[in-house]
């Protein structure tokens, strides 16, 4: 009889590390309804988008240390391919979403093939250059891409099958789902053989090769995944903002922002991009409010400054600090449920 009592009482125990994430998830689900006006919903949608983009970047650059500053190329490709398909053929964005991702993935093959022949900073500059070259090409072929004016998604009001909604709420939930998806993919990848191999390559590529790791192939696969997710982000962004242009979609500014999200939050971790996205979007909104968009270049100057500051003082990002805080807070919280006598 004592054994039975023990079995029953050991089965139900609600510890902070279980209910806090669950509460947070619930919070995320009701968040839009808690916010006073659509502007704030817009902010959290942007946060979710940045989680997605930063998370996508993190897969290759965070884990394997191959720092790409040309990821905008994948974002822009997804956005443009999808929008062109929607505009010219009337295909539903729910479908062109995957075309956009696939196009970005296809692009990652030649880009990886070229860039992986270079190491370290040279790899990074090559990615910058290739994204720049793509931007120039998109600007150039204006019969297809409408050049510097960019593309617009024709506004159809509330049309869910065209991924257009009256209110911001549905966008929020889709963005949340996409962001969660990216984090989930990161989690699966991290635990897989590829995930381990990427870390090894990032630590010491020669040693990794000597252990049988085909570093080029591993990097290529990570890049494909990263590019695909980035492309999805581009499609969603196009649908959300209705307007895309070469400078915004393929520009170095975007590539830097995306990298910054992961760096500030913590590269090579699952939740790093999520933390970084929240911080960065907060930062962006604050600077926009403070500077009121008055001075050209001031905003970007601040990003540059942020980049430099982070590198000088917190190159690993805030993740470890966050983790410590979180663990400490958890330890203060009570647990529920029956305990053994």
């Amino acid at each position, binding site marked *: 009889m004592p054994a039975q009592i023990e079995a029953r009482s050991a089965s139900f125990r609600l510890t902070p590390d279980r209910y806090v994430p669950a509460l947070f998830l619930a919070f995320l689900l009701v968040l839009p309804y808690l916010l006073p006006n659509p502007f704030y919903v817009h902010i959290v949608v942007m946060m979710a988008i940045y989680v997605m983009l930063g998370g996508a970047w993190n897969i290759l650059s965070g884990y394997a240390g191959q720092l790409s500053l040309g990821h905008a190329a994948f974002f822009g490709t997804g956005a443009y391919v999808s929008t062109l398909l929607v505009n010219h053929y009337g295909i539903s964005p729910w479908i062109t979403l995957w075309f956009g991702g696939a196009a970005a993935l296809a692009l990652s093959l030649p880009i990886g093939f070229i860039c992986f022949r270079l190491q370290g*900073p040279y790899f990074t500059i090559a990615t910058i250059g290739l994204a720049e070259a793509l931007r120039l090409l998109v600007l*150039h072929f204006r019969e297809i891409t409408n050049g510097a004016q960019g593309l617009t998604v024709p506004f159809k009001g509330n049309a869910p099958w065209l991924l257009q909604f009256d209110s911001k709420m549905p966008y929020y939930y889709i963005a949340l789902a996409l962001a969660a998806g990216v984090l989930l993919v990161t989690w699966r990848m991290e635990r897989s053989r590829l995930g381990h191999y990427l870390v090894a390559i990032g630590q010491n590529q020669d040693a990794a090769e000597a252990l049988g790791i085909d570093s080029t192939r591993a990097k290529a696969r990570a890049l494909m995944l990263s590019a695909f997710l980035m492309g999805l982000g581009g499609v969603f962004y196009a649908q959300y903002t209705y307007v895309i242009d070469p400078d915004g979609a393929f520009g170095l500014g975007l590539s830097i922002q995306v990298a910054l999200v992961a760096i500030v939050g913590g*590269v090579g971790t699952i939740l790093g991009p999520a933390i970084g996205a929240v911080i960065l979007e907060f930062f962006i909104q604050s600077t926009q409010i403070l500077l009121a968009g008055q001075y*050209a270049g001031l905003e970007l100057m601040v990003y*540059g400054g942020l980049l430099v500051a982070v*590198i000088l003082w917190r*190159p690993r990002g805030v993740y470890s600090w966050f983790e410590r805080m979180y663990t400490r807070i958890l330890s203060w919280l009570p647990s529920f449920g029956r305990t053994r006598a």
Partner: protein
Amino acid sequence: MELSTFLQALITGILMAGIYALVATGLTLIFGVVRIVNFAHGEFVMLGMYVTFWLWKLWGLDPYVSLLITMPLLFCFGVLIQRFLFQPILRAPDLAQIFMTVGLSVILMNVALFLFTADFRSVKVPYGEWAWRLGGVTVLLPRLFAFLGALLLAGVLTLFLTKTDIGKALRAVAQDREVSMLLGINPNRMYLLAVGLGAALAGAAGGLIVPFFYVFPTVGVVFVLIAFVVVILGTLGSVQGALLASLIVGVAESLGILFAGSDLGLVVVFGILVASLIFRPSGLMGSR
């Protein structure tokens, strides 16, 4: 297309190659000694251009004369950058290096944008339109002067590196930091010198092209990307390689502009990089 048009583009390309070689040399100098791939290098060019422009605009100083001011100014700037921004991250991983220099690049570009606006600036000098006409080909003299100026500076630099003690010390640090320390060379001083010199050369390149090139805040990006292609194509560390590569790149860009359009020059240059990485990954001077 007429032969003369083709020759025109060829000559323009060759003349521009001198400038690209100068910028690439500064980049290589910094990388060779300090081991930092300076993505902000294009901004040194841009700053050189703006200094030259404002000296002309405010005090009527001739661009070539103002080199005497531009170069020392950029030298000091380079020294400051090394001391306060590069020095702390010398031992840091690649990520720090890249993002520091990219961040610096963004800051400088946007400071220029903020201070000087995005307006395209240009200088009007009496010799700005001088040209030699040979057959159907027009050689714009300012371009020729820029080429000769670049050549001169490269020559002076070579003499400095090979004939003076400091120059040799610089090369020693580039070759082997530890051993040069044993020889009593202070590497930190050499780093300051290297970045200062690299910046001065880039600034000079900027000053030399102001008579025929528009000045605007983002002008530097193209230069650093092209310089980077030159360095890779020419094989990291090879001087002859860099010279040959800058010729190829200069001509390719020029011909690319001729055939594909003025907005695709950079695309052609990057096409060269792609081809080189595929067919000759270790560069022109490397063994396959």
